[in-house]
């Protein structure tokens, strides 16, 4: 099982509501590889609830991850008020596992939408036997844009061009294909 799938499976087992967001989430919506960004970070949006957050951290520690907020390690056990403050203030924490260099970020807030809105609109995909909850593409791209970082803007621009190229083919080309198919069908009908 891939490390990210192991993690998703473990979060599901302890009933922590979570969605894949960021580049990893956008990748799940891709039509083909031209929209799949190579990444070393998996971003999850965890429900902003102290209990859920503590459960997620416990899962991560059991899987061998080290937890941090920015550069500071999160104490084990941590004070009950700590999870409350992270959830209340919408802060992010990271988890890193040395053996497979797996880096995970837990967001508790995303710009542009609330967790409940995003949760209601999420899409569930599969990866083999694992079900993956992914935030709407619209929510992911909006949040990237609002973060106002160059990397995020590049991702949104790349997605926009990719979608545009696929969804808006040259009308003259489409007319040619339609005409050719009609001719082929007419030929087949005549032949029969």
């Amino acid at each position: 099982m891939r490390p990210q799938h192991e993690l998703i499976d473990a979060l599901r087992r302890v009933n922590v509501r979570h969605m894949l967001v960021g580049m990893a989430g956008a990748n799940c919506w891709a039509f083909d590889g031209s929209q799949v960004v190579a990444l070393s970070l998996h971003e999850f949006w965890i429900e902003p609830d102290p209990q859920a957050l503590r459960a997620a951290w416990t899962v991560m520690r059991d899987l061998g991850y080290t937890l941090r907020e920015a550069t500071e390690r999160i104490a084990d056990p941590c004070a009950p008020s700590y999870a409350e403050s992270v959830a209340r203030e919408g802060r992010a924490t990271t988890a890193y596992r040395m053996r497979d260099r797996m880096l995970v970020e837990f967001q508790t807030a995303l710009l542009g939408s609330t967790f409940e809105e995003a949760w209601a609109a999420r899409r569930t995909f599969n990866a083999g036997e694992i079900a993956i909850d992914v935030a709407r593409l619209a929510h992911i791209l909006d949040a990237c844009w609002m973060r106002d970082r160059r990397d995020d803007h590049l991702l949104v621009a790349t997605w926009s061009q990719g979608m545009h190229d696929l969804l808006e083919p040259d009308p003259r080309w489409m007319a040619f294909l339609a005409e050719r198919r009609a001719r082929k069908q007419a030929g087949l009908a005549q032949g029969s």
Partner: protein
Amino acid sequence: MNLENSQEFATWPTPAPPHGTVQFRSHVERFEAGAWNAPGTDKAWVEAIQPLRDTPWTTIVRDAPTQGARARLFHALGNARIRYMVIGVGGADLHARRSGRHFQTLDLDLFLPPDAANLERAWDACERAGWTLWSGLEPLDEPHDDLVARRVVEMRARTIARTEGALPTDLTFVMGELDFEDIWLRRTFTYEDGEPIELARLSDILAAKRQVNRDKDQYFLAQNRAVLDELLAAERPPEPSA
């Protein structure tokens, strides 16, 4: 419809709508509603295409899983004596690899001359290498005969070669406003897995990006300015000694 009007060709593909516009929102909604994004769709392929992680703290990584398929493709193109050059960020990446650097590429662009016979042989080479041909969201119309090839060339339309586990490869006739024959004369080459690859000069690749000037091109140029300047300096002929 006047297909011979070259001014019309230059208008396609059009630039993508910026974030926040009605058209952008409409694209996102249509994309979300696409059959490939139906609930429960298996997305294991997304992970399969992910490059290896060299280090955990960088997103610039190798596309190792695609190399077998790419090598087969370049081998077939070389064998069939196809005139093509790698351009775009994929081309810039091949230049950067010479000095141990990488640019992340999401596809590979092959620049072809407006020559239907060359295109037909290129399609044939792609298929012999195990790649399938697409036009946008649909497989390319069968048979891939001279009529389709000529029309694709006339319209400067883009065809895409796809294969399992590899990044898509675009066959394009457009490189900004640059002429194929000019670029061909200045081309260079490189090797990947022992296969020779025809490669446009980095200065031409970047000139085309500046001309096209889509949002994603602007971000790419801005984000990698220092590395690109260094690579460009290495491409220039040495200063004459005093």
